[in-house]
């Protein structure tokens, strides 16, 4: 039990076969008190949530709601071993995301025909995909933009690694092949199981990440349109997003989507609100770039799963629409600068500087914290955080209003993951090695999400490029939402074997090498 970074054997906190760990981590007086105070805040958020009868009703109606009991544990997994500014940055990100998801759940159940059934509220709701940039909603400040898939599958798996298994099984029992990506598969399973809240004036779906996601939407839209009577607009974002000759099409899709929302909600587009959101998006972009600049030095500050999760939320789901994220951006930047000036480190030793590429395992999102604590591998940045850095027009002029459609289209096309998995090999294959140089990395950790066809399709060429450059490349295979295929220990073992047999190294913290966490949340 120590205040110093890296002095503890973090693996000793695990109870073999248990859902939770033995006890909270001792981080010294100041950090422990801070961490405890944030833990209390999370408990208060949960407490406030469950005192509402409709939320209790939802707990019994929706199978996936039980996963939300694991919220404090999820934060603990991500703060493992962190001290000082790192701990505070992590809480700044995670706690805000928790507040945001709690608000999302509140709103979903308020409008849900089966729970709150607030019909007036429901008329102001526009449903969106989980994997969808919400740029097209930046000019509708009075509408509620809600994703049902985010709490039912996406966040649920972050909370409890086994959360999606039931829905994956439901989809397969219905006849879906078992080799598709388990994420849209689970989302389709929720819809087949009729386990999603029913509300909204209309819905916007998007051909977001992959063929599976696109087709999975068809299962969901069928129920929405034919059973629930909720009209759906399918927003088609071009796949070859770097090409000039697709941008007119993309912009027109945005115009059509806006017209659809206006028609079904009766709410007109608000340019003032749009440009305010654009300003916040630009601010978030500048902050992210500043963090990435720091990560190019010997003292990276905002990195790992926190960066990835926060970017996913802020860049994709928020799109400048919620001011609280601007405040969080500011606080994170302040903390990062503070730590950078003091040349602080998040682990006692940084042995390797790694670029994390590919799609991370959702059921083991805190793997990057483990990577740092166990092997001293610094995850400088990850594929999902390397998103658009283009500045949006933020001044309301007639010319900028026209450009704004292209800006929104650009953001939609450049949603996290799809901006790399689609658009040709340059954005996935070539740019990886540019980042390796830019960040002065000496290792690439390549998530191999086994049912992601777009990534699998570059498997051999990733290896060839790594060999040509003499950069160690470690494959980490997983099945995104399904730990039954590759367990968390299975994920760790791939690194452990590589580090011991190829790199001939010993772990920084041997207690973390093997953890019996198959049953853990």
């Amino acid at each position, binding site marked *: 039990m120590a205040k110093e970074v890296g002095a503890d054997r973090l693996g000793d906190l695990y109870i073999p076969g248990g859902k939770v760990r033995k006890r909270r981590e001792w981080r010294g007086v100041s950090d422990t008190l801070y961490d405890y105070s944030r833990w209390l805040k999370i408990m208060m958020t949960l407490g406030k949530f469950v005192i509402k009868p409709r939320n209790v009703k939802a707990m019994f109606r929706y199978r996936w709601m039980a996963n939300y009991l694991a919220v404090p544990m999820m934060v603990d997994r991500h703060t493992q071993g962190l001290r000082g500014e790192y701990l505070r940055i992590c809480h700044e990100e995670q706690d805000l995301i928790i507040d945001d998801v709690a608000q999302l759940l509140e709103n979903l159940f308020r409008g849900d025909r089966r729970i709150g059934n607030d019909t007036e509220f429901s008329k102001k709701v526009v449903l969106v995909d989980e994997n969808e940039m919400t740029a097209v909603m930046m000019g509708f400040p009075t509408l509620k933009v809600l994703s049902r898939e985010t709490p039912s599958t996406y966040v649920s798996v972050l909370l409890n690694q086994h959360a999606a298994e039931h829905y994956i099984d439901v*989809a397969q029992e*219905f*006849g*879906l*092949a078992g*080799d*598709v*990506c388990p994420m849209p598969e689970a989302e*389709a399973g929720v819809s087949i199981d009729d386990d999603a809240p029913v509300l909204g004036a209309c819905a916007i*779906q998007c*051909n977001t990440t*992959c*063929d*599976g996601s*696109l*087709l*999975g*939407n*068809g*299962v969901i*839209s*069928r129920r929405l*349109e034919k059973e629930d009577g909720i009209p*759906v607009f*399918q927003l*088609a974002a*071009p*796949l*070859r997003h770097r*090409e000039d*000759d*697709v941008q*007119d*099409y993309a912009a*027109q*899709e945005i115009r*059509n989507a806006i017209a659809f929302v206006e028609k079904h909600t009766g709410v007109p587009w608000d340019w003032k609100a749009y440009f305010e959101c654009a300003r916040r998006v630009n601010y978030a972009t500048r902050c992210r770039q500043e963090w990435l600049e720091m990560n190019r030095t010997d003292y990276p500050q905002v990195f790992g799963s926190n960066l990835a999760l926060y970017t996913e939320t802020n860049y994709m789901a928020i799109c400048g629409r919620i001011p609280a994220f601007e405040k969080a951006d500011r606080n994170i930047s302040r903390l990062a600068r503070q730590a950078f000036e003091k040349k602080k480190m998040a682990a006692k030793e940084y042995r390797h500087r790694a670029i994390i590429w590919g799609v991370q395992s959702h059921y083991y999102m805190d793997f990057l914290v483990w990577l740092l604590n166990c092997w001293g591998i610094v995850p400088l940045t990850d594929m999902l955080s390397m998103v658009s850095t283009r500045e949006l027009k933020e001044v309301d002029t007639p010319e900028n209003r026209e450009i704004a459609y292209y800006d929104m289209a650009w953001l939609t096309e450049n949603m996290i993951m799809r901006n790399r*998995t*689609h658009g*040709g*090999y340059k954005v996935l*294959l070539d740019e990886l090695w540019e980042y390796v140089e830019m960040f002065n990395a000496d290792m690439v950790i390549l998530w*191999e999400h*086994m*049912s992601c*066809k*777009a990534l*699998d*399709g*570059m*498997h*051999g*060429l990733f290896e060839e490029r790594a060999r040509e450059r003499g950069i160690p490349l470690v494959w980490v295979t997983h099945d995104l939402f399904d730990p039954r295929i590759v367990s968390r220990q299975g994920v760790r073992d791939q690194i452990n074997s590589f580090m011991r047999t190829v790199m001939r190294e010993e772990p920084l913290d041997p207690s973390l090498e093997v953890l019996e966490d198959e049953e853990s949340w």
Partner: protein
Amino acid sequence: MLSFGKTEDIILKDLKHLKYFEDLLQEANNDLIQQAQQEGKVCAAYTCENTPEPLLNLPGVFSARLRAPRTGSLEVSTYYLTSFLCEYTRALLERAVEGGFNFADCIFTPDGCSMMNRCVENMELLKTLGKGKEHFFYSYMEIPMKADDNGLNLYVVQCRNHILKPLAENYGIDISDDAIRAAVKEHNRVCELIRAIGEYRKDDNPRITGYEFQVFTLATYVAPKYLLIDKLEETLEELKTREPDAKFPYGARVLVAGSEMDDVDFIKLVEDSGAYVCADRYCCGSFPGRDPILLNEDEDPLTQICRQYMYRGQCPRYMDSTKMDARRDYVAALAKEFNADGIIYEQMKFCDPWAYEKMLGSHILREEFGYPVLAVDRPYAIGNSGQMRTRVQAFVESIGIKKIRKESDNG
């Protein structure tokens, strides 16, 4: 006594050109491709049904849809693409690595699906095509995911920039409206012949098997069309007088719907198992791939071609609700038109788009349209799969039992 498909009863006299067409399908670089190239024509290879074929058949150029007949080991392509990509893409890459597609003078591939895109990108990065061909090029293109005016604009721009322009710049191909109209005329002649041949499948006791029809149809995708027309015409004439078997020798009539299939052995296996394939709704099949393209004089032909490809397209990548519903309606309408007793939904293993379409389609066709449906996934080359044979035989039996029940219910 019930008789569920006695294929030994099939005594149809062989069609004169069947063997010729079967031989054409034995090689990607078939005799007619070689002949056309010797005549100075450019071979435009392509990989997806969403590529408008007439644009690849302008004067001086002909299209060849890539396939890998008699595919064997997929070791090299599995290394590059992993075992999770569909076998069609792996088979193509393997063949490309072996040098089997070096006859192509250029290749066009839309981002129809991720796997196809990655397959061709690997071909490019591994420098597998175009050896010794100075003007060889790869062309990737975006294609619409919804059928609407915006999608049409995109389709036209993409075809102009990624098909017509590179053909003109690299090979001096005439891409004028007149040239496009001439290509459509030739395309339509082939479509009319295939349609006419396929019409015989509607007969109660057809004079052509589903396998034979598939052989003729597939050849029109993989060989220069203009070199096939005379033999297709002769075949059509021959069919007019061909005697069908004395008694319909199958247990059921089925429509096969699903993903890319250039494997005639699959149809043969289905028919050998007692199910007559009366209609085909898959890539490389005749519906909708062999629909003639109707042109008027009021609008440029490129826009008209793109519009017809977009609205008739049955590819599951079309994501708008109207198109999704229309896909199942289309299958149901075909089944009705061709008097199908049941539907086989097939999906190449690891194909994401068809995994979902097969799941929904099989439920909808069964529950809303009342058809017996068999949903199967299959490898690229089926060979003589006992497992598949058993499934089809069981399906045929179940259809037969339903028929008997229905007859007894009706007294």
